[in-house]
């Protein structure tokens, strides 16, 4: 059984979705889709639960309620491998599916169906993506799903697990390498002195103790005038961040912005210095880490164009010119990797030679005779369990940061379309059979009610901004819900509308829920003139 919860996998993870389809078509796996929209691929699903935007915790808790009510939980696993189960049991008592339909948006009978299917499945994978994490209560959403894995024991064994699908070829690796404000390489806790000391010894200079700021907090610091310089490598925050008007002002106000990229995107146009880099997937030497923690080699197949240069050389050259303390020198990708292996114990056994011979290794892999770790939570099946028990973390339903009201009666949810990738910087140049264009997805009933025809230009307004976009009839959205992608920010700057309410722990903004008003563009313009 495969559950896609808040994941538009067929459009946004098309390769992964092909693997899932192989399981569905050839091996009889059941696919369940939990999503506010009738997303692409729904025709292959045994069940679709149209969760209300922001209703994920309530729905997950309702599923947990049914599993417990019907005695379908994995009692042996819960007793041996988990803790805080009683807190969880108490918390979900308030989520009888019939009582919380208004929060979940899902008929109670379908909640019960999903609960029985999941609890009784031999093997079940629960996958999620940004539909879960781009909310102001993202961490609670994630905990509510993890709780279901713990309740049923669908974790840490072949064919079963909890799987946040990663959005880029190396999202996993970026975090693993310590490109995080509170973690050193190997996902090690920066607050631990022994962790800082290990890195300091290898780098030949102390590691700052003070925790850093995550991306949203950096924008707050810019607003307060505390942050003056920004170094951006291969990102387009001007167009990818929520509340775009605010972000532009902050970037323009910086004393200095350095951009290192392969393409001059609209963020780069605001930079003070732009350095042309290599495309990691075709021109760079090194490694990347995929969704299953597998580190794999990448090698250059092409020479970088024009004067563009190897990214590692650029960073090293900057450090050397700034007379950085420590062991900075020009090194090969492999030499840098071998240094990382000294800083990060979980990568210790991953030499380039082994990665090449074995076609990749999954961390943790501490020593050169270690085979890697295919199942991260496999230890939960040991008896007794070695190390910490897996905690249930009870979570309660909360409203979205913005609710619809008389002035802003539609809920806008955002995402990606098949043809394009994020802000379109790398994909806008390719030919696409359906073309690169943005439209507002709206259901036939709402279009009739507003007197709109296919292709009519509408103005979509939120409390922060407005965009003009043609409307297109879509069977994917239900009455009251509309959809825009962020793929074509030069045509339709969707993030002028979105809200920068962020999860206090993860720092991720609620891109998935914005209250908007929709008017025919002509009328909206005339209203503005009066």
């Amino acid at each position, binding site marked *: 059984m495969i559950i896609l919860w808040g994941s538009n996998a067929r459009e946004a993870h098309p390769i992964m979705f092909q693997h899932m389809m192989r399981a569905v078509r050839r091996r009889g796996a059941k696919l369940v889709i939990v999503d506010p929209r009738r997303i692409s691929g729904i025709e292959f699903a045994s069940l679709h639960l149209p969760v209300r935007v922001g209703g994920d915790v309530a729905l997950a808790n309702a599923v947990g309620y049914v599993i417990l009510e019907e005695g379908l939980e994995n009692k042996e696993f819960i007793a041996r491998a988990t803790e805080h189960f009683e807190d969880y049991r108490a918390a979900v008592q308030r989520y009888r599916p019939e009582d919380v339909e208004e929060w979940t948006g899902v008929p109670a009978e379908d909640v019960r169906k999903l609960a029985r299917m999941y609890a009784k499945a031999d093997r079940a994978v629960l996958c999620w993506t940004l539909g879960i994490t781009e909310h102001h209560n993202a961490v609670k959403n994630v905990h509510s799903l993890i709780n279901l894995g713990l309740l049923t024991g669908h974790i840490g064994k072949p064919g079963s697990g909890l799987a946040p699908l990663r959005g880029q070829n190396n999202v996993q690796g970026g975090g693993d390498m310590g490109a995080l404000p509170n973690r050193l390489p190997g996902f090690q806790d920066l607050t631990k002195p022994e962790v800082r000391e290990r890195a300091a010894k290898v780098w030949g200079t102390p590691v700052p103790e003070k925790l850093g700021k995550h991306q949203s907090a950096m924008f707050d610091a810019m607003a307060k005038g505390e942050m003056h310089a920004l170094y951006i490598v291969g990102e387009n925050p001007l167009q990818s961040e929520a509340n775009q008007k605010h972000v532009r002002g902050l970037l323009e106000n910086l004393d200095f912005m350095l951009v290192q990229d392969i393409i001059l995107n609209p963020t780069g146009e605001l930079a003070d210095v732009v350095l042309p880099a290599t495309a990691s997937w075709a021109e760079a030497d090194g490694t990347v880490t995929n969704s299953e923690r597998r580190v794999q080699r990448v090698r250059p197949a092409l020479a970088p164009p024009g*004067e563009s240069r190897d990214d590692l050389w650029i960073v090293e050259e900057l450090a050397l010119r700034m007379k950085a303390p420590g062991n900075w020198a020009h090194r090969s990708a492999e030499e840098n990797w071998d240094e990382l292996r000294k800083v990060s114990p979980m990568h210790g056994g991953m030499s380039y030679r082994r990665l090449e011979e074995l076609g990749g290794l999954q961390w943790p892999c501490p020593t050169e005779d270690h085979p890697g770790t295919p199942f991260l939570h496999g230890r939960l099946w040991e008896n007794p369990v070695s190390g910490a028990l897996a905690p249930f973390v009870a979570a309660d339903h909360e409203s979205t940061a913005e609710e619809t009201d008389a002035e802003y009666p539609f809920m806008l949810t955002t995402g990606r379309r098949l043809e394009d990738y994020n802000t379109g910087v790398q994909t806008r140049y390719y030919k696409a059979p359906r073309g690169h264009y943005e439209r507002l997805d709206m259901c036939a009933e709402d279009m009739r009610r507003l007197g709109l025809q296919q292709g009519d230009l509408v103005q979509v307004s939120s409390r922060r901004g407005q965009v003009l976009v043609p409307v297109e009839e879509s069977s994917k959205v239900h009455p009251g819900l509309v959809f825009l992608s962020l793929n074509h920010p030069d045509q339709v700057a969707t993030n002028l509308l979105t809200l920068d309410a962020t999860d206090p722990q993860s720092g991720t903004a609620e891109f998935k829920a914005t209250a908007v008003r929709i008017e025919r563009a002509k009328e909206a313009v005339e209203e503005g003139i009066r």
Partner: protein
Amino acid sequence: MALPSVDQSSGRLLYPMVREGGKLRRASWEEALSAAAERMTSIRERYGPDAFGAFSCSKSTNELNYLVQKFMRTAIGTNNIDSCNRT
């Protein structure tokens, strides 16, 4: 071995640029790198390391992400580094 190069009609950046009089113009690597190093050094002296932030790239290699965080933590001296992997 000489590798073939992509024929880039696709907006690839082909040379360094620096801002002058409000506009980006073509520059040599020497000019761009020394401008970047000098500006960052002077901002660090004036406002301290925590006046800096960095966004690293989840499309690039582990080795690059490793070096960018090492750069921020040692050359600048701050933990203000993030990337899009928190979703």
